[in-house]
């Protein structure tokens, strides 16, 4: 990846989109300070680099700890890890000083769980929860770590449509109370609907700007038509034409009994 340069302000909702291998995850790992950039910097508003916040921290002059929250891709986690929901959510508060949990940290964890509606799962084992519940637990942990900025790496991967919608609504609520959101997503429609900034990556920055501007670009149309979508169809687009069949009927929400794909997929 090269020449990736962009800035976000507090309260933004940024979606990072792009095809597989376009460098989305690499970018996020760099933003989080998990990977050192070959060159260049990631800076916070006060000029502190992200490295001062985490392992291998260099900049000693940065006293302020930038608190960030992170929701990792779920596939990075182990499936059989014995841990209760409370243990996991509490571990998010550890960026505050001290070795043992204080009452304040416990309160924070409880209120994070409450706001995401998982307080009743507190004592349950993480690995016995459903996928949607697990995501909420990890989101609660991320909330315990930050009040400013949340990094989300494909938060809805593998969730069913209903839970996906709930997840997006939850993230929107968080954004509305002032938390900056940076999210990697394959779900371009949701990105267009919820975010206010878009970063389109393809090894370098193909687009960076507000969502409104992005909607007007060819890039967006092209990207949209790759996905069986109910709005877009571009007669000049090769991929669109290939999948024309699929596009045409999904576009009107019509169900065609003579169509193979329709019958296979049920009503769309």
């Amino acid at each position, binding site marked *: 990846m090269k020449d990736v340069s962009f800035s976000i302000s507090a309260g933004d909702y940024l979606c990072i989109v792009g095809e597989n291998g376009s460098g989305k995850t690499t970018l996020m790992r760099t933003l989080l300070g998990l990977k050192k950039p070959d060159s260049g910097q990631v800076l916070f508003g006060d000029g502190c680099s992200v490295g001062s916040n985490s392992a291998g921290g260099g900049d000693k002059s940065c006293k302020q700890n930038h608190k960030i929250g992170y929701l990792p891709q779920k596939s990075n986690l182990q499936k059989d890890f014995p841990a209760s929901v409370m243990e996991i959510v509490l571990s998010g508060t*550890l960026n505050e000083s001290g070795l043992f949990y204080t009452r304040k940290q416990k309160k924070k964890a409880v209120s994070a769980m409450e706001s995401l509606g998982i307080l009743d799962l507190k004592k349950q084992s993480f690995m016995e929860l459903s996928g949607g519940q697990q995501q909420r637990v990890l989101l609660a942990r991320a909330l315990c770590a930050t009040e400013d900025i949340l990094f989300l790496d494909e938060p809805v991967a593998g969730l069913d449509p209903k839970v996906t919608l709930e997840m997006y609504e939850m993230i929107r609520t968080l954004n509305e109370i002032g938390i900056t959101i940076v999210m990697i997503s394959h779900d371009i429609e949701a990105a267009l609907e919820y975010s206010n900034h878009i970063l389109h990556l393809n090894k370098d920055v193909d687009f960076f700007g507000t969502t409104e501007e992005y909607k007007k670009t060819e890039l967006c149309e092209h990207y949209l038509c790759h996905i069986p979508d109910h709005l877009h169809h571009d007669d000049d687009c090769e991929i669109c034409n290939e999948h024309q069949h699929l596009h045409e009927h999904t576009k009107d929400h019509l169900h065609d009994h003579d169509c193979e794909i329709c019958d296979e997929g049920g009503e769309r």
Partner: protein
Amino acid sequence: MIRIIAEMLSYPFLVRALICGVLLSVCASLLGVSLVLKRYSMIGDGLSHVGFGALAIATAFHWAPLAVSIPVVVAAAFLLLRLNENTKIKGDAAIALISTGALAIGILVVSLTTGVNIDIYNYMFGSVLAIDKTSFFVSIGACVVIIVLFLLFYNRIFAVTFDEDFTRATQARSSGIHILIALLTAVVIVLGMRLMGALLISALIIFPALTSMRVFKSYKKVTVSAAILSAVCFVIGIFCSYTISIPVGATVVVINIIAFLIFFLIGKIRIRKQQ
């Protein structure tokens, strides 16, 4: 039975072995929960082979065994962690390389110098006589330090074990936890090796954690259960080993296997009851 226990306790070397063994088992199991969950189970095995190599060399040149092996094994632990981060050689292959390499060097040194004598045999399979007064005090001191450090850093160890990326990204103070775990593991292995045997010591790290995970589903419960289980298994093991006159290391491992099977069954029955 009480008579046998009283008889055992009348031998100072057995009392030393018992106290040391229980403490080392507890330490090994505490670290083991984290190591097993991080998929580093074989690190214990690799390090014990390195420890064997170091002890063999120390014996051949009449150096103090602990003074040589502790630094060597600690260095190997760092190297293994480093290799684990490096994707060119996968972690499990790296461990196999280092462990067989160290074992080979140890055997060569032994055969060129003293030959396989009773000392070497004891290093490999353990001996209840191994704990002399010096190593007794060293072991107790080290175990107390390890347990205190573990309790102090318990929450951070959990965070790093559960999700290293998240912890590294959000917390400034957790970067050293890895190194701490590797260091403590290396010390436990060297100290426990002569009692349990180089080829068997890693069982103390792996079994209690794995056994506890059959039944318990929260990190705290698994940790507490592993520590208790490990101590109990060691006590039963050393008792059996004395009464039937069989090697202590192997006996403790067999007791751990039995405990694993029992917990496995309990776990299965629980699941069936829930359904």
